[in-house]
């Protein structure tokens, strides 16, 4: 279409074509300039700055900084007693989110993809947490999972079970934080799976059914191969999403108890604005930046396979 347009213009006014193109180009730069200038100052500049900061000794309290070489990175790997534990927690958190998101997302999508009566209502219910603020979601769950006074333990007490002090015990705290976070995002994965299921060509499905294949076989041998790229996409999206949990962690546990729920994005905030070590926080931010870049690249590679016609 672009070519057709160009031909139309150049064909009609061959003499002025160059200046027209020139004008179009300048207009283009002008139109994107607010976005690009803002991006340079608010996003790209700070990303470059954070790399520089990570090579410096700096604190939040004083604006001066001194060059430190790779000291912050050395501290990260060798002497920070929490770093490895924090990375492991981040990995466990991420590894917990993925199966819940894929499992529940796929289950609900399979059950809700054929526009039966009531499907829209269920879809809305599962999607509502996606739209709800992370703050509200975390506040309610923190309330629900309090020690003796929380509704969950009160229900368990009615059943004669003494529930743990969920958010004060390291293992349970991580489990609760992971599961409640996963529930918030399942609806989104459901939508992605529904779109994928509805995009499966009908002929192979019907042919298989006519040949007498049962539902399980149809699912296992025909639908599942078609859904593999979408599943991989959901996995990567969930991993990227696991890096965007600051609000959830802050409001539910603030990284505690005894750092049991300390994950990378929250640890950056903690080091910078609670421990005031902005140099070290910047080194951690570089790690997060590299992780995000890696995952985004992976996602694009996957996406190209899922939706080949998309630019």
């Amino acid at each position, binding site marked *: 279409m672009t070519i057709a347009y160009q031909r139309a213009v150049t064909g009609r006014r061959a003499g002025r074509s160059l200046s027209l193109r020139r004008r179009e*180009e300048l207009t283009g730069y002008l139109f994107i300039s*607010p976005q690009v200038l803002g991006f340079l100052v608010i996003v790209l500049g700070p990303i470059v*700055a954070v790399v520089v900061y990570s090579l410096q000794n700096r604190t939040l309290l004083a604006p001066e900084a001194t060059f430190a070489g790779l000291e912050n990175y050395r501290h990260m790997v060798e002497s920070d007693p929490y770093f490895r534990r924090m990375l492991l927690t981040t990995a466990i958190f991420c590894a917990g989110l993925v199966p819940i998101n894929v499992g529940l997302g796929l289950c609900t999508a399979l059950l809700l993809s054929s526009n039966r009566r009531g499907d829209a209502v269920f879809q809305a219910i599962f999607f509502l947490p996606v*739209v709800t603020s992370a703050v509200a979601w975390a506040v309610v769950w923190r309330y629900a999972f309090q020690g003796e006074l929380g509704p969950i333990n009160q229900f368990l007490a009615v059943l004669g079970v003494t529930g743990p002090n969920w958010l004060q015990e390291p293992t349970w705290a991580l489990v609760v934080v992971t599961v409640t976070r996963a*529930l918030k995002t399942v609806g*989104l994965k459901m939508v992605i799976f529904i779109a994928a299921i509805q*995009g499966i060509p009908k002929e192979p499905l019907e042919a298989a059914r006519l040949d007498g294949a049962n539902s399980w076989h149809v699912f296992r041998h025909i639908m599942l191969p078609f859904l593999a790229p979408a599943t991989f996409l959901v996995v990567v999206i969930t991993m990227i999403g696991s890096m965007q949990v600051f*609000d959830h962690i802050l409001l539910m546990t603030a990284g505690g108890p005894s750092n049991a729920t300390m994950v990378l994005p929250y640890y950056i905030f903690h080091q910078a604005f609670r421990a005031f070590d902005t140099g070290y926080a910047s080194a951690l*931010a570089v790690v997060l930046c590299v992780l995000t870049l890696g995952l985004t690249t992976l996602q694009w590679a996957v996406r190209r396979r899922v939706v080949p016609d998309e630019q």
Partner: protein
Amino acid sequence: MSSDVAFQTPARLRPTRPSRGAPSLRGTAIIATTARYLFLTVLSLVFMFPFWWLVTSSLKGPSEIRQTPPTFLPESPRWQNYVEVFTYQPFARHLFNSIYLGVVVTIGVLAISAISGYAFARLRFRGRSVIFVVLLVALMMPTEVTIVPLFSLMRSLGLVNTHVPLILIPIFGPQTILGAFLMRQFFLQLPRETEEAGMVDGLGHLGVFLRLALPLARPALGALAIVTFLYSWNLLLEPLVFIDDPDLYTVPLGLNSYTDSYGVPIWHLQLAATSISIVPMVVAFLVARRQLIVSFAFTAGK
């Protein structure tokens, strides 16, 4: 865009029903249907639980909220909670701050992403695809990565403890990139003919954009406006880092401040305030569920 098109297309995938003749098969179908609804209902209860518990508990008094066994409905709704929310701290002020910041951010994001999205869709200039890809990569970058340099920047400009960072960062940050992306997709779908006619009539690129393309983009702008307002409304990290003065608090910061001197939440007030805070989301969801789902699925897909 393919995913939302698919989403809107009614499914043709109805499973073939087992033949009516065989009673055993019919029994299986009934069991399967029952199991399906049972599973969906139980799962729905899990998903509805937080909302139910949020709203009902926000109407309980300080003692009923700790009662064992818990009550499913407040014994007598304590509307007083919703008054105390505003007397305990300047929550009305926080609401006002969040609303005006949300409006300003939404207008800014819409303006910048509409014109930039149009350029990426329609105008040819060198470096277009490279710039666009760089922007898309940055879309996924969490603010945690850039927050330390942003804090230094804002502090050197004397803008800490003002609302300026809460306007500038969202307007020029990832939300605008998402906006430009959505607007580009929208403009790509528009037929070119009107715009070409406009060019021939001597309107110029700006004229074509303002008079022809932009009016057609109203539905896309509406969806983007809703998502952007909610985005601004829910921001937590930026206000937490940049704001100290309780008068400048936004709603999420206010919610986090219903605590006693030991930092223990005053639940009946915190839950009441939280109930108020989700009103915009619930309204948006009821008004524009489909657009919201599409926009959110889009964000995730990029």
